[in-house]
């Protein structure tokens, strides 16, 4: 048996421990409420895969009524602005070979590039050369074989940035392959979401589950600003049910003691406090921080990455003179993806959910990627739907 299988047995299939942890959560919650005076304990995650685990394993159904688990901005595909998709469609229609991750292939634009062309998939159907790749490595190898002018649609968060940076660093990119950066940073958006909850009439966020795989790169210390500046406990957790339950229990304990000064690190089997220095150095060398647009939300200062000047010959936006216009509201009519992304609405709050918008015919961007909240809830959200029904009955 190998290590990944052992991890599954210890952290995924260990129902005895999951039961124990959820019992402890139930015992601790009233004490936290009594001590802190909070009416609700709202815990936000920042990773589509955490939302997947939470929903897929029905973890919400194990929570006491006062503990609410919500998804924050954690899916880079969902927040890729419509203008970026349109630019990629235009390049594809102009004859460039466009490389994309499968997740972004069906992403809809808010208005069509041309009649009937509102995604890279539809551009391909009308004859454009759009190629889905597993990785940047695959795009490089493929672009070398044909030599045609090509552009890679560079999406992702901090976790994906090193996959580009290490390759740029070693100068293995062929001259015919340009890079269109749509890279985003999680922390500025996380702060944005936390502030929205704090300012609005909604209950503020009481704890956060830090994104496990972004943290492999930035380290758990990347989230210390939550306890330090906002007084909110943060736990970097893994992606198995036991990990999430432990994270919730740890947050409750931190709320009770009020002593948490730094981010707790549960996902020790993968993440360190300082993160992956090798990847951090590569990213810093290749990319600079920029303002960038988050779909449905608008510009968030210093929340994006773009290639530094020494790599400008690869920068598609510069080389192809692509203008970045000021943000215009870019969700399709009726879509609440911005609210879903900021954790102010559940997917089921959207009237189009599983009606006009389904995984096979996504209307909005959160229904496209496997880690988009709407797509996750569409596939596995029954426990939450049952929970909502139970609440209605209680009320």
């Amino acid at each position, binding site marked *: *048996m*190998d*290590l*990944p299988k052992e*991890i599954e*047995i*210890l*952290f995924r299939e*260990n129902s*005895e421990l999951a039961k124990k942890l959820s019992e*402890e959560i139930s015992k*601790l919650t009233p*004490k936290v409420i009594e001590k802190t005076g909070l009416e609700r304990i709202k815990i936000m995650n920042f990773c*589509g*895969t955490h939302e997947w685990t939470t929903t897929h394993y029905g973890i919400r159904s194990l929570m006491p009524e006062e503990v609410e688990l919500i998804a924050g901005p954690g*899916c*880079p595909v969902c927040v890729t602005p419509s203008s970026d998709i349109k630019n990629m469609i235009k390049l594809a229609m102009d004859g460039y070979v466009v490389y994309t*991750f499968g*997740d*972004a292939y069906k992403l809809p634009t808010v208005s069509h590039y041309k009649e009937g062309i509102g995604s890279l998939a539809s551009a391909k159907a009308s004859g454009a050369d759009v190629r889905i790749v*597993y*990785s*940047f*490595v*695959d795009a490089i*190898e493929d672009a070398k074989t044909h030599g045609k002018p090509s552009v890679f649609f560079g999406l*992702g968060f901090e*976790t*994906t940035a*090193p*996959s580009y940076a*290490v*390759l740029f660093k*070693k100068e*293995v990119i062929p001259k015919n392959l340009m890079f269109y950066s749509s890279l985003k940073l999680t922390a500025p958006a996380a702060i944005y979401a936390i502030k929205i909850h704090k300012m609005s009439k909604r209950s503020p966020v009481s704890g956060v589950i830090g994104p*496990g795989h972004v943290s*492999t*790169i930035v380290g758990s210390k990347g989230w210390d600003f939550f306890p330090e500046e906002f007084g909110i406990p943060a736990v970097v957790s*893994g992606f198995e049910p*036991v990990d999430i339950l*432990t994270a919730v*229990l*740890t947050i*409750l*304990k931190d709320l009770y003691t009020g002593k948490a000064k730094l981010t*707790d*690190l*549960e*996902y*020790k*089997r*993968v*993440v360190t406090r300082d993160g*992956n*220095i*090798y*990847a951090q150095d590569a990213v810093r060398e290749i990319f600079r921080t920029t303002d960038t647009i988050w779909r449905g939300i608008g510009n968030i200062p210093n929340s994006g990455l773009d290639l530094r000047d020494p790599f400008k010959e690869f920068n598609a936006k510069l080389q192809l003179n692509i203008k970045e216009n000021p943000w215009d509201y870019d969700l399709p009519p009726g879509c609440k993806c911005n609210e879903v992304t900021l954790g102010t609405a559940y997917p089921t709050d959207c009237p189009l959910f599983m009606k006009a918008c389904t995984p096979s015919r996504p209307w909005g961007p959160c229904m496209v*990627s*496997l*880690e988009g909240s709407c797509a996750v809830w569409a596939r596995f959200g029954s426990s939450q739907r049952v929970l909502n029904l139970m609440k209605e009955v209680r009320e």
Partner: protein
Amino acid sequence: MCWAVPAKVISIESDLIATVDLGGNTIKKVAVGVDNVRLGDFVMVHAGVIISKLSKEEVIENIKFIAEQIREVSEITGEDPEKTVKEYTDSMYKLLGQLDEKNG
């Protein structure tokens, strides 16, 4: 695209590219995003790049973190911390022992 999966390094092409086995007969060429990758290492792969390594020692650290949380929570809820932690660690190490036995 954000899905990170564990994989085994089955060949190292250069300090830049390695081939990994993602399980289920899926073999991929990926970028090396960590220092010091060795043949046979278990790693986490995300969107075509190795982002970290996995090791048994760190799995034990993970188990210990959970033990510490259980201890601190027991102190608050008035349970016997030693007893609850012992029950937890016994069950985890029993599972690990069974796994080690299977590993031979």
